[in-house]
C-alpha cells in the first residue's frame, strides 16, 4: 500500500480512490471552512487534472496552474488545492451541523428491548422500528384477548426514556419510565386489573349475543355499544370502566313514541338494578324484553335504496364514522338523518337558527324538524 494512502484517509476522509486500467481517480468531497467542495480528480503519472464544477469556477485560474505542476501523490495535490481554496474562500459563517451522538441511547434502548424479550419470553408479538424510535407490543391476557401498546423512545435527553403513546385500553393514562420492563409491567397490570377484565367479559358477551351496529369493529378501548332493539330502534349503552356493575348510561334512538315508551320502562325499573347479577340479564330485566334480537344473516341482495336506520339524505349508515342521530318527530315519517347532512340541508334553505339548534322542514315529510348544530362545524 503506497505511503500516501493512509495520509489521504486521515486528511481527506471523504475522498475515495478508484483505479481503472488507464488511470487513477479520486472523488468525493473536501471541506474547507464549513463549505463542502465536490472533487473529481484524475491522475496521469505525476499530473493531476481536476474536473471543474460551479463551486470551483472562482478559482479556475489557480487550478489551471496546478494542472501544469507535477505532484508526487494526490495528498500533495489536495494540500495545494486546500491552500488555494481557503485563501480565496470568504470567511464562512460557522454552520457546522451539530451532530448529536445518540449512540449511547441507542445502545441502552437495544439493551432494554433485548432484556424485555428475554425476561418476558412469552410476549405474543413485539416489534421495534428500524430507527429505534417506536416499540410495538401485543400481549394476551388470561382470556386470550389481545392487547396492544405502542411505546415511543424519547431521544431529547429530557424526561423519561420510554413513553406509552397508544394503547387499546379505556382510560388512557400517559405512562412513562426509564426502564422498558417497568413500563411494560405497568401496562400489563392495567390490563389484568379485575375491573377491566370484568368489563371485557361483559362487552365480549354483548358483542356475542346482541346485534351491535356501532362501533363497527369494537376495540378494547370502546366502552359503548349501540345495540338494535327493534326495526329502526336502537340504544347506546355507555359503561363506566371503573364501575361496570352499576347501571350504565343508556340512550335510545328511534321513533319518538318508541323512545318515550322505553324511557318510561327504564325509569320504572332502574331502581331494581342488581349490581351483583350478570350485567346482560339485568339489562334484559331493565328493558322488560325477552332477549336482545340477534344479528340477522346479512343478505346484500334485497338491499333497498334507503334501508332501516339509514340517513335519508346521504342514503348510507356511516358518514365519517357516525351513525344517523336525528329522527323526524313526525310519527308517520320517522326518517333518520345524520345531523351533519340535515344541518347542511337546512342551512342551505336559510332555515331559522336558534341558539344551538336549527329548525326547518323535514326533507321527507315537510313537517317541522329540529337539528342541533353538528360539533364539527
Amino acid at each position: 500500500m503506497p505511503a500516501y494512502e493512509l495520509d489521504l484517509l486521515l486528511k481527506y476522509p471523504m475522498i475515495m480512490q478508484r483505479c481503472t486500467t488507464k488511470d487513477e481517480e479520486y472523488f468525493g468531497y473536501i471541506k474547507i471552512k464549513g463549505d463542502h467542495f465536490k472533487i473529481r480528480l484524475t491522475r496521469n503519472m505525476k499530473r493531476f487534472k481536476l474536473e471543474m464544477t460551479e463551486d470551483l469556477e472562482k478559482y479556475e485560474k489557480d487550478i489551471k496552474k496546478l494542472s501544469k505542476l507535477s505532484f508526487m501523490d494526490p495528498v500533495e495535490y489536495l494540500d495545494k488545492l486546500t491552500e488555494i481554496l481557503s485563501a480565496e474562500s470568504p470567511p464562512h459563517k460557522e454552520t457546522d451541523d451539530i451532530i448529536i451522538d445518540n449512540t449511547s441511547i441507542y445502545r441502552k434502548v437495544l439493551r432494554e428491548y433485548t432484556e424485555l424479550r428475554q425476561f418476558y419470553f412469552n410476549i405474543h408479538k413485539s416489534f421495534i422500528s428500524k430507527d429505534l424510535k417506536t416499540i410495538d407490543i401485543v400481549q394476551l391476557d388470561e382470556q386470550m384477548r389481545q392487547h396492544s401498546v405502542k411505546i415511543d423512545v424519547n431521544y431529547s435527553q429530557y424526561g423519561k426514556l420510554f413513553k406509552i403513546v397508544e394503547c387499546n385500553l379505556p382510560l388512557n393514562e400517559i405512562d412513562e419510565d426509564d426502564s422498558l420492563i417497568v413500563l411494560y409491567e405497568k401496562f400489563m397490570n392495567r390490563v389484568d386489573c379485575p375491573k377491566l377484565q370484568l368489563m371485557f367479559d361483559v362487552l365480549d358477551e354483548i358483542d356475542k349475543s346482541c346485534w351491535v351496529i356501532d362501533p363497527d369493529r369494537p376495540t378494547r378501548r370502546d366502552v359503548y355499544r349501540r345495540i338494535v332493539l327493534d326495526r329502526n330502534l336502537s340504544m347506546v349503552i355507555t359503561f363506566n370502566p371503573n364501575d361496570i356493575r352499576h347501571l350504565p348510561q343508556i340512550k335510545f334512538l328511534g321513533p319518538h313514541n318508541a323512545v318515550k315508551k322505553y324511557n318510561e320502562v327504564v325509569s320504572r325499573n332502574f331502581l331494581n338494578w342488581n349490581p351483583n347479577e350478570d350485567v346482560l340479564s339485568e339489562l334484559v330485566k331493565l328493558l322488560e324484553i325477552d332477549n336482545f334480537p340477534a344479528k340477522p344473516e346479512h343478505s346484500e341482495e334485497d338491499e333497498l335504496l334507503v334501508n332501516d336506520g339509514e340517513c335519508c339524505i346521504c342514503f348510507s349508515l356511516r358518514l365519517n364514522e357516525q351513525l344517523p342521530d336525528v329522527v323526524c318527530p313526525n310519527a308517520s315519517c320517522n326518517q333518520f338523518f345524520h345531523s351533519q347532512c340535515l344541518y347542511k340541508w337546512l342551512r342551505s334553505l336559510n332555515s331559522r337558527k336558534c341558539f344551538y339548534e336549527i329548525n326547518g322542514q323535514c326533507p321527507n315529510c315537510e313537517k317541522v324538524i329540529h337539528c342541533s348544530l353538528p360539533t364539527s362545524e
Partner: protein
Amino acid sequence: MAGMSPSERRLQKELMSLMKEPPPGVSVDVDLAEQNLLQWIVHMEGVTGTLYEGESFQLQFKFTNKYPFDSPEVTFIGNNIPVHPHVYSNGHICLSILTDDWSPALSVQSVCLSIVSMLSSCKEKKRPSDNAFYVKTCSKNPKKTKWWYHDDSV
C-alpha cells in the same frame, strides 16, 4: 365503496338500485353512468293506456358534486321530445321538484316516477303556450329558469 365522497356513494347506490329494480318502463344506461357518475341517460317508455303509449323517450340527468343538496339537471334529449303542456320542445321540463321543491330525500327514482306520472296524466298532447318564446330566450340549463308553475292538474 372506500375513497368515495358521500355524494358519489349515494349516486353509486342509486345507480345499483335503479339497475336492479327500475320503475316500470324505466331503464338506465349503466355503462354510460359508470363511466361518468355525474351524467346519466335514462330511457323511458310511454305507459300503455296513455297518450304516449308506444313512444320512447330519453332523459338526461346531470349531477354536481353537491348532489343531493343540489337538485339534478333533468332534460329530455334525443329526437323524440314528448309533446306535453309542461315539456318545452328543447327538452326542458317545468316540474317543481326539479328546482324549488327539490329535497335531498328525493332520488333519481322518484324524479323518474314523477315524470312518468306527469306524462301519464296528460289529456291533450300540446306544447306549452309560451314554447316559441321560451325556447328562443332560455338558458341552456333549465335550473337557471325562473319557473312559473302553471298548474298541478297535468
